[in-house]
């Protein structure tokens, strides 16, 4: 297993190398006894990337691309099948459960559905306080003040009023603010935001995005922003990685990827997003077929059955993620033509 020195140094907070996560498919007892080979869902199949301190790194892809599984692995919630994940030069695979638990103070998560993330029988203040109780039990006297301060910082005023509320008594947008407050209370460095605003209404989304950007500055945060919504990603991400069927097909700065997508899949994905302007309707044809089964992915380049540029080479040889311009990587044999 490799160590944490590939991208080490002050500016790299998270370093993921050749991450694989395969989930075995549970079969009946008979097929297990008959010794048939177990199939795996290759949710993540060899993904490498790093997240710099203070940046917003986006992971985008369609359902089943493996984006959420990668997020769970980075937080140590899922044990990788292969590969290494380093957080601030600490290899997550090489530390004890107790050390991992303490490390979690420095990494927190925000999920899509705030109602599912909050205990319906716990008051807002109490819910936010949980992190403090676990990680700072010796400072119990300060807990209430810290929680009140945090409720205020996420824009819920007066904080004493919200402190006593239950989740069902506040609106969806306010609940997501509570979830953000709960994540920030332990003063983490990394926030995994897994579709954090997907459930919010349009008029509320902009406010939540703005809050996340403001808090990032205030608390020197680094975000791993997981989304299927490329239009929203544009407003918050500094760099973005595009996933297809458990593989990273393209990584680069948001501007370079959106302006000059070098992988045919990224091109299709960006073109598919509807634009709120009836004068600029899409003309590009969409790729044929749908995402294949991750149990038995296509040979060579996984996108080749749907790719308009595919050749014999694409069927046989898997393309590597190559740097085609400074900081802009794509995994396509023929990416040069798009430069």
């Amino acid at each position, binding site marked *: 297993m490799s160590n944490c020195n590939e991208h080490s140094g002050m500016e790299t907070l998270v370093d993921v190398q050749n991450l694989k996560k395969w989930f075995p498919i549970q079969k009946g007892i008979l097929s297990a006894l008959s010794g048939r080979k177990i199939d795996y869902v290759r949710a993540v199949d060899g993904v490498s990337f790093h997240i710099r301190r203070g940046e917003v790194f986006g992971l985008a892809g369609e359902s089943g691309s493996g984006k959420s599984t990668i997020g769970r692995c980075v937080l140590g919630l899922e044990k990788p099948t292969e590969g290494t994940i380093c957080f601030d030069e600490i290899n997550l695979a090489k530390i004890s459960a107790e050390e991992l638990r303490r490390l979690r103070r420095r990494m927190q998560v925000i999920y899509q559905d705030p109602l599912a993330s909050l205990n319906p029988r716990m008051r807002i203040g109490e819910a936010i306080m949980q992190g403090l109780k676990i990680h700072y039990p010796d400072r119990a006297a300060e807990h209430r003040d810290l929680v009140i301060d945090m409720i205020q910082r996420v824009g819920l005023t007066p904080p004493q009023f919200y402190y006593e509320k239950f989740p069902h008594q506040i609106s969806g947008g306010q609940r997501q603010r509570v979830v953000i407050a709960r994540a920030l209370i332990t003063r983490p460095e990394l926030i995994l935001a897994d579709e954090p605003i997907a459930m919010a*209404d349009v008029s509320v989304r*902009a*406010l939540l995005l703005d809050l996340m950007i403001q808090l990032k500055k205030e608390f020197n945060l680094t975000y791993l922003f997981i989304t299927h919504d490329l239009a929203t990603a*544009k407003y918050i991400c500094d760099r973005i990685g595009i996933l297809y069927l458990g593989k990273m097909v393209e990584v680069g700065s948001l501007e370079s990827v959106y302006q000059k997508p070098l992988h045919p899949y990224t091109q299709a994905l960006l*073109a598919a997003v*509807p634009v709120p302007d*009836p004068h600029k309707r899409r003309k590009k044809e969409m*790729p044929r077929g749908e995402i294949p089964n991750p149990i038995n992915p296509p040979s060579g380049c996984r996108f080749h059955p749907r790719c308009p540029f595919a050749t014999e080479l694409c069927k046989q040889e898997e393309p590597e993620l190559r740097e085609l311009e400074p900081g802009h990587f794509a995994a396509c044999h023929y990416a040069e033509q798009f430069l």
Partner: protein
Amino acid sequence: MEQKTVKDNDVLLQIRNLNVTYKTRFGPVSAVEDISFDIKRGEILGLVGESGSGKSTMGKALMRMLPRSAKVTGEMIFDGEDVMKYNEDQLRDFRGKRISMIFQDPMTSLNPVQRISDHVVEAIEVHEPETKKESALKRARTLIERLGIARRRLPDFPHQLSGGMRQRVMIGLGLVLNADLIIADEATTSLDVIVEAKLVDQFRQIRDEFGVSLLVITHNIALVAELCDRVAVMYAGQIAEIGPVEQVFDNPLHPYTKGLLKSVPNIRLDEREELYKMAGEPPSLTNPPSGCRFHPRCPFVMDICHRIDPRLDEVAPGRMVHCWLYEDHPEKETPTIEVAQ
């Protein structure tokens, strides 16, 4: 608005003064309030709004599918006949033959233990008992192929198809009886963007080929821009604005539409980098604000807005807006804005 119920050949469905009130523990909830609009033949009309705006209730009201706890009043003139006066038998024929509905999750609309072919054949047999099974099957085959699903997938069960294919089967169920109107209620919402884009192409194609009208109910404003001919914007159970898509997007009139359009993320890099942040959140319908329901969030709020609800008025040909800025009233102090065509 003028009450016009004469048979007009361009208009398929006229909705006049439709109200839907749910009885709840917390008192009556007026989910749809005094809504009037038309759906033309062969048009794609977008009905857009945030959660709780009443857009889905609207769709269900058109199908006459609302539960008994919902009190529905008003008129719905479909091809010259008032659907509100239909009895159960007439309604069964109306749903399916004239109007059909596609929901967000096709898995809950399809029977998991029934083959795709049987779904389509059953729909034909129920509504056209004289049709022989053989010819029904043939019709099912032709239609499914036209919607881009291979013939060999017909004996499959719903779980064997992908999400996009299942939605196409649902469209097929609507088309097989030659319905005049298909209501798509968040039909693309749970699909991935590429699959969604293909379904959008399919919607356009069936409109062109079969001449059906589509009512696209969605929260996705960009989708409306991509697909629809006209758009109706709903807010808190009322229609804020209706008009042709290009005109509404180029020059929104209602302050809510103005704010909403500025807060939609746009993937194009050359578009503005700041999203507009609208104040507040949509109101609760158990206790809606007085006067205009948007007034607590409106940046252009006037004195009259607190007290009196404006009407949905035609302010330019084909453009209707529900706002005091464009309507006169003796109690109003500021001048009314004229909308140039």
